[in-house]
């Protein structure tokens, strides 16, 4: 299964689908403890499986939602590197959903709009969305021959093998090398992003990485693909996330404030993919998809109070902030250095640590963090009075934002 194929389009952004569905339950596995156990490999250590991870996340989400098993009438399954069938997953979780929500991708954001459309069309009322990845347990590699034969893969993942060019990181390395020359930026400038996201994670007791990162740590860390250091690239760890979605009119009188799915968008690069990635940094796609999502939600960019961006690398996070227009192209690193991405900044970004420092959950942990922030249950890292959050998935050739609002 590919996390990149997009055979099933997400439903078009439309006003009538806005705020029809709320997230009412969230559950995650113990990222920090799981990572520590995987690293220490104590005698008797059993690596987690998609089944064990999913079960934990689902039980926590169900308890969190205040709903009962028989309330769940839809199931959406996202096992990014393989796992049980949807039917076997239902059995594992002890539920009997009437609907298995079809989907093409496992990476957030695609599955969420599809599940929302299923609920809005009346096919079901309450969907459990489960995601799991045992990336570390299976020894997943993110370069070389990893992507051979996967359907729908951008050519950049497999075509340049004879030149020795293939890895996730290499995409962002080309982006960063170009950016440095274009804007006169330095490694220290980019280090500020890794340090800021880590600083956010220090207030998250479930983050894999909670030790503050210094500039000296950053600069002395090894290069993976020069000019990118280890700390410019996301983690590899095991975990699962479960989100429970419910028809918005049935989402009241539950234990937590509902988090409404207000908008979404999707925009893909059709040609000149390396040009669009390296020189334009997907800005045309971010502008297009961002306008779809904001239009659907009836909001403008200045209404967004909290941003969770897909931080596969530090520079890629900055590209998204610049791409949507939160800051001008070339101004993202100064924005970070002035502290604006911190909890008390003008636009808190990746407040739980993202995939750089919290957990590599392919965007699902970003959405879980949005749920906590909009419920005002984020503890030491709570953004004051936050009402509106935006998530952004950006891959090498496509952009998918989601917009959420705190419900009444």
């Amino acid at each position: 299964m590919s996390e990149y194929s997009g055979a099933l389009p997400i439903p078009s952004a439309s006003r009538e689908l806005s705020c029809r569905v709320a997230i009412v339950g969230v559950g995650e596995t113990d990222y920090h403890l799981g990572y520590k156990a995987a690293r220490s490999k104590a005698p008797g250590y059993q690596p987690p499986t998609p089944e064990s991870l999913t079960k934990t996340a689902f039980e926590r989400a169900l308890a969190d939602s205040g709903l009962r098993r028989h309330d769940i009438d839809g199931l959406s399954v996202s096992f990014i590197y393989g796992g049980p069938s949807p039917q076997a997953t239902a059995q594992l979780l002890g539920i009997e959903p009437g609907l298995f929500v079809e989907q093409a991708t496992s990476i957030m954001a695609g599955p969420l709009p599809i599940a929302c459309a299923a609920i809005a069309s009346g096919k079901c009322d309450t969907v459990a969305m489960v995601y799991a990845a045992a990336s570390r347990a299976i020894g997943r590699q993110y370069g070389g021959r990893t992507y051979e034969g996967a359907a729908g893969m951008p050519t950049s993942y497999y075509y340049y093998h004879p030149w020795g060019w293939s890895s996730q990181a290499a995409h962002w390395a080309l982006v960063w090398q170009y950016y440095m020359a274009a804007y006169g930026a330095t490694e220290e400038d980019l280090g500020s992003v890794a340090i800021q996201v880590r600083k956010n994670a220090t207030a998250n007791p479930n983050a894999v990485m909670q030790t503050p990162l210094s500039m000296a740590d950053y600069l002395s860390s090894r290069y993976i693909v020069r000019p990118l250091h280890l700390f410019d690239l996301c983690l590899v760890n095991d975990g699962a996330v479960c989100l429970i979605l419910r028809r918005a009119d049935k989402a009241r009188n539950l234990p937590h404030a509902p988090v409404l799915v207000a908008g979404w968008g999707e925009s893909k690069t059709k040609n000149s993919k390396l040009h669009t990635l390296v020189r334009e940094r997907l800005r045309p796609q971010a502008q297009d998809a961002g306008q779809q999502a904001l239009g659907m939600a009836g909001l403008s960019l200045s209404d967004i109070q909290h941003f969770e961006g897909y931080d596969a690398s530090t520079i890629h996070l900055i590209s998204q902030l610049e791409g949507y227009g939160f800051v001008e192209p070339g101004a993202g690193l100064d924005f970070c250095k002035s502290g604006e991405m911190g909890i008390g900044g003008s636009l808190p970004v990746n407040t739980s640590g993202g995939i750089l420092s919290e957990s590599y959950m392919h965007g699902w942990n970003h959405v879980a963090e949005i749920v906590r922030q909009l419920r005002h249950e984020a503890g030491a890292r709570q953004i004051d009075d936050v009402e509106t959050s935006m998530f952004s998935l950006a891959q090498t050739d496509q952009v998918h934002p989601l917009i959420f609002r705190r419900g009444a």
Partner: protein
Amino acid sequence: MTERRPDRALGSVHDEFWSWCDKGELRLQRCADCGRLSWPAVQECEFCGGTRLSWSRMSGRGAIVSWCTFERDYYNGLLPIPHDTILVELEEGPLFLSNPRGFSWREITAGMAVKLAFLDCEDSAGPFRLPVFERA
């Protein structure tokens, strides 16, 4: 000396690309409908979907747009670590991912002029000539 390289993507249009390389020519597909060049090799023009494509010879002149160096071994020892890769803007427009020959990342600057060369290589499908770039 022939260098061992990771396998090419082969079959149909890809074979045509590599057979031009064997003759010492870098050729990309130009669309008869919109006139634009597609790369990597395609079945249909990546801009307009046109299917009337012909292999157009590139001048071999270009400029470096970006570059990166692999410090982590993703190919199980097949390639030296570190190894450099460059993104070259061909004079005709497309960006072409390649390797530098005769210089390293330490000497590269943005916009540096380069010219085409071919390197004798082999992969599991046999010998082939790999388009790389030297200082212009």
